[in-house]
C-alpha cells in the first residue's frame, strides 16, 4: 500500500515538499543544538522543562484522542465509525511520532537514549512512559495497517487482530495516565501534585484529539472523493462537547481546592499563570485567551443549532484545539516550575531556535499524517 503515498497531485507534492523543507531547516537547527547543547533554548536551572516537553505532553493527548473513534466502533458496534477508525489510528501514529521526536530533542545526551532500556528502572515513571508510548505506536501501526489492507482486499481482517484492537483501548488511556504521572507524583511541585491531573489530561485529550479529527474530516471531504460522513462528524462533535466541558470542570475543581484551601505552594502557580506573581505576568494574556477559546468552544458545541452547522463547528474545533494547546502546551509546564522550589520567580520564554525545532517536529508529524491519510483515502476511494 505504501506506493499510494508516492503518487499524488501537484498540490500533494507541493505540500509534502513544503513540510519537508521546514523539517530540513529544523534538522539543521537541531544540529546546532546538538553541537552547542540545550543552552540554545530558553530553559534554565529553574525551568528545566520547556516547550519541547509541553508539546510532547499535548501530543500524547492527541494520540490518545484517537481512541474516541475506536472505542464506539469496536466496543459498542457503532457502525458509522467504521468509515473513520483508520483516520483515528493514523492520527495517533503521527502524534506519537511527534511525541517521541520531542522527547529525543529534549535530551541532553540523546545518543545515550537506550540507557533507559539498558538499565530498566521500574521505579521511574519515565521508563514506563517509554514502554506505553512505543507500545501504543506499535499497536496502532499493526492494527491500522492490517485492517486497511483487509479492506482494500475486500476481506475481513485477520482474527488475531481482535485482541490487539481491544488492548489498544485501555492502552490509549494508559499513555496519557502515565504521562500525567510524570508530573503528578513529584513532591514539592504543588501545581502538578493533584490526583485530578490524569483525568484532566484525558479530558483535554478527548477534546483536542477529536477536534483535530473533525477538522481533518472536513478537509478530506473538501479535497478528496471520500466523504467521512456527516453523521460521523456530528457524533465526534458531541464527544468533543462532553470532553471540553469535563476539561473545564476539572480545571475549576482544581481552582476550588487550591484557592479555598489557600495553601501557598499550590496557589502560587495558578496565581502566576492567571494574574502574575511578583510582577511577572508573561503568561497571563495567554491563559485568559485559552479560557476564552475553551468557553467559546463549549457555547458553540453544546448548542445543537451551532453544532449542526459545519462552518460553525469548524470554528469551534479550532477554538478548542488552540485553547487546549495553550492550556497544556504552554501553561502546564512553565506554570509548574514558576515559582521555583526556593520560591523565586524566573520566567521561561522559548527562543527562536527552540520554536523552529518545535515547528519542524510538528511538520514532521503532518508529513507522516499526510502520507498515511493519502494511503487510507486512496484505499477508501478504490473500494467505494
Amino acid at each position: 500500500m505504501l506506493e499510494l503515498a508516492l503518487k499524488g497531485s501537484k498540490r500533494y507534492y507541493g505540500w509534502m515538499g513544503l513540510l519537508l523543507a521546514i523539517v530540513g531547516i529544523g534538522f539543521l537547527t537541531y544540529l546546532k543544538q546538538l553541537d552547542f547543547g540545550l543552552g540554545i533554548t530558553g530553559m534554565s536551572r529553574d525551568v528545566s522543562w520547556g516547550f519541547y516537553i509541553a508539546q510532547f505532553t499535548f501530543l500524547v493527548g492527541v494520540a490518545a484522542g484517537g481512541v474516541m473513534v475506536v472505542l464506539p466502533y469496536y466496543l459498542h458496534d457503532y457502525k458509522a465509525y467504521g468509515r473513520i477508525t483508520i483516520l483515528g489510528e493514523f492520527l495517533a501514529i503521527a502524534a506519537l511520532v511527534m511525541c517521541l521526536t520531542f522527547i529525543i530533542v529534549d535530551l541532553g545526551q540523546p545518543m545515550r537514549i537506550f540507557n533507559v532500556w539498558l538499565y530498566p528502572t521500574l521505579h521511574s515513571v519515565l521508563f514506563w512512559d517509554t514502554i506505553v508510548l512505543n507500545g501504543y505506536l506499535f499497536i496502532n501501526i499493526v492494527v491500522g495497517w492490517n485492517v486497511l489492507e483487509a479492506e482494500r482486499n475486500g476481506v475481513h481482517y485477520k482474527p488475531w487482530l481482535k485482541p490487539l484492537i481491544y488492548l489498544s483501548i485501555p492502552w490509549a488511556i494508559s499513555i496519557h495516565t502515565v504521562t500525567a504521572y510524570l508530573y503528578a507524583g513529584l513532591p514539592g511541585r504543588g501545581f502538578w501534585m493533584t490526583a485530578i491531573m490524569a483525568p484532566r489530561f484525558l479530558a483535554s485529550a478527548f477534546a483536542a484529539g477529536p477536534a483535530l479529527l473533525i477538522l481533518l474530516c472536513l478537509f478530506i471531504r473538501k479535497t478528496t472523493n471520500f466523504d467521512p460522513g456527516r453523521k460521523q462528524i456530528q457524533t465526534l462533535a458531541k464527544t468533543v462537547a462532553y470532553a471540553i466541558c469535563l476539561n473545564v470542570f476539572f480545571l475549576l475543581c482544581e481552582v476550588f481546592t487550591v484557592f479555598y484551601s489557600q495553601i501557598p505552594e499550590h496557589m502560587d502557580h495558578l496565581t502566576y499563570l492567571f494574574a502574575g506573581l511578583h510582577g511577572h505576568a508573561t503568561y497571563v494574556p495567554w491563559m485568559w485567551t485559552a479560557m476564552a477559546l475553551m468557553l467559546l468552544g463549549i457555547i458553540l458545541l453544546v448548542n445543537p443549532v451551532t453544532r449542526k452547522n459545519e462552518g460553525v463547528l469548524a470554528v469551534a474545533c479550532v477554538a478548542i484545539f488552540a485553547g487546549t494547546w495553550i492550556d497544556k502546551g504552554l501553561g502546564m509546564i512553565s506554570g509548574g516550575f514558576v515559582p521555583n522550589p526556593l520560591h523565586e520567580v524566573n520566567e521561561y520564554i522559548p527562543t527562536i531556535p527552540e520554536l523552529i525545532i518545535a515547528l519542524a517536529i510538528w511538520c514532521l508529524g503532518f508529513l507522516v499524517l499526510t502520507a498515511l491519510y493519502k494511503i487510507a483515502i486512496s484505499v477508501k476511494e478504490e473500494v467505494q
Partner: protein
Amino acid sequence: MERSRREILKLFGITALALNTPPVLNAFAAEQETGHGVEGEPYVKKGDDALKAKQWALVIDTKKFASADDVTPLVEACHRIHNVPVMPIKNHEIKWIWSAPYHNAFPMSPMKFMDEKLEHAPVIVLCNHCENPPCVRACPTNATFKRPGDGIVLMDFHRCIGCRFCMAACPFGARSFNYRNPRPFITETNKKFPTRSKGVVEKCNFCAERLAVGQLPACVEASDGKLAFGDLYDPESEVRELIRSNYTIRRKQSLGTEPAVYYIV
C-alpha cells in the same frame, strides 16, 4: 559542528563498546556492609583511611553565618575542587552549594516578625542527600542513585541521558544541568576530579571522593567549625550530639524526603 569521518567512526566504535561493556555500577550495587561482595560479584573495597557511616549528615549552624562573606569561602572551596564552572548567563548557571535568604531556603515555613539578624542572614543550601530521595525515584536510568552503605545521593555523569526528570523531582532546587560545554568556563581545572560534558545533570556529592581518602567535605573543612559532618545513625557522633542539644529544622520536612542536612536556628 565540524566532524571528520574518522571521528564519526570513533563514535560508532565507542558506542558499540559501551553497549557491550557490563555496567560498572554493579560494583557498587553488590557492595556489602563488610566491604565484601557476594561471591563472584565485583565490589569496591573501601580504602583503609576512608571515613565510614551508615548515613552521612550535615549540621549547619545558621547563627554563625552573619553575612555573605561567611559563606563565600565554603562555596569557593567546593566549586574549585569540583570544577564547577562560572557560566556567562544566568539560565545556564551551575551551583552545588550556595546561600539564600531564610524565606527562600524555608519557603514552606515563613516566619513573621522574626529576628532581623536571622531573617537577613544567608542560609547555606545544597543537596540534602535525602534518605528517601525523589530524584532517585524519578531517574529512568539509575544515573542518580543512593549509595548503599553511606546514603550519599550520587550521580553517574556517564550514564545520565540529560532528561532532567531529577531536576523536576527535587523539591530543593539542588540540581544543575549543563546547558552547554562547561569546560571553557572552569576558572582552574582540578585534575583530580572529573569535569562534566554538556547535557548532563550535576549536584553536590557530599565530597564522596574526599571521604574515600579520609578527608571531610570541602565545605566543612572551610567552615571553621560552623558546619559539622558525621554519621546520623551513630548516637555518639558530633552531628547527633548537635541535633540532640540544639533546636534544628530541615528544609520542607513535611514532604517526607528525610533530608540529611540539619539547620540549627
